[in-house]
């Protein structure tokens, strides 16, 4: 494992992702979701919206890092809000 050069932030990041995947699975078992149409131009399931949210969050973070010097935390907060909007109304 040493060669993987783990750091605390990246470990937390991956634990977070794993936790999201596990909880999404549990949620799906408890209450299966149906595909629906929100403000996105295509019908999506919960999982699709999660993926879209994560991918767009990654790009938002990159844009923040590249174009501004403000703290990355602001981008993270922004992404969290965006994720909630997407999951609820997307």
């Amino acid at each position, binding site marked *: 494992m040493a060669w993987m050069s783990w750091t605390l932030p990246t470990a937390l990041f991956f634990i977070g992702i794993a936790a999201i995947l596990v909880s999404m699975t549990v949620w*799906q078992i408890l209450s299966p979701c149906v595909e629906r149409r929100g403000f996105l131009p295509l019908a999506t399931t919960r999982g699709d919206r999660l*993926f879209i949210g994560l991918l767009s969050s990654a790009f938002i973070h990159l844009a923040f890092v590249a174009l501004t010097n403000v703290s990355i935390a602001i981008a993270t907060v922004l992404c969290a809000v965006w994720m909630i909007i997407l999951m609820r109304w997307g």
Partner: protein
Amino acid sequence: MTPSNTQAPVHSTAERKARHAQWRGRFGLVLYIVLLLLPIYWLINMSFKTNTEILSGLSFFPDNFTLENYAKIFGDATWYMGYVNSIFYVSMNMVISLLVALPAAYAFSRYKFIGDKHMFFWLLSNRMAPPAVFLLPFFQLYSSVGLFDTHIAVALAHCLFNVPLAVWILEGFMSGVPREIDETAYIDGYTFPRFFVRIFIPLIRSGIGVTAFFCFMFSWVELLLARTLTSVDAKPIAAIMTRTVSASGMDWGLLAAAGVLTIIPGMLVIYFVRNHVAKGFALGRV
């Protein structure tokens, strides 16, 4: 009954037009294939020449026909072992890919399960990921588990893009098999493994042939990962070819001969699957 006189001329004009179009098509195809084969012919031509002849000028046929370049390859273990290594890991990769992809493709074509679509997309995204991205960690991963410079390491690494492709192709072929066959077999008392091996696999034989062909193709042609994960014992021929560059300049004849020999296995394989290729290239999805 003979065709009426008024109809005949119209028909023959149309037919003549069609025949003309066909001849134009044949001509175009032959031209395309000639242009396609020209670079390969040039390589073969060069492999039978000596280096002095290659550098002294252009000619369509070797003046002093020589097998010296080939003799050098077949007489030197460090050269011909490259071919053995490549064929070894490619076959291994083909077997592994098919073994794991068959049940998975069946699951994707027959059942709905949690995360199936995302799983399928994730698999495909690995087919699309550039190997360059994984180069360094691959080297370290395989070194740390003690597989560096073994055939299995390259075979496993090539699974990264071949397994998703195999699942994709097989899923297409399996979806074409009616589900009633499965249901009838289960009613007749077949267990899943027995049904799968005895009934289902024979049904998608051509799909399996085509998948094996694609696995062979993409594993055979890949160099970046194969070169990174090997040093001596499992070094593929493609990496050994770089040896022809030396301080005294390029050994063009030897390079050409080595290149020609890498084309032959591919041609053999495509000859065997030629009847399925047309269907296979649509990935079972027409």
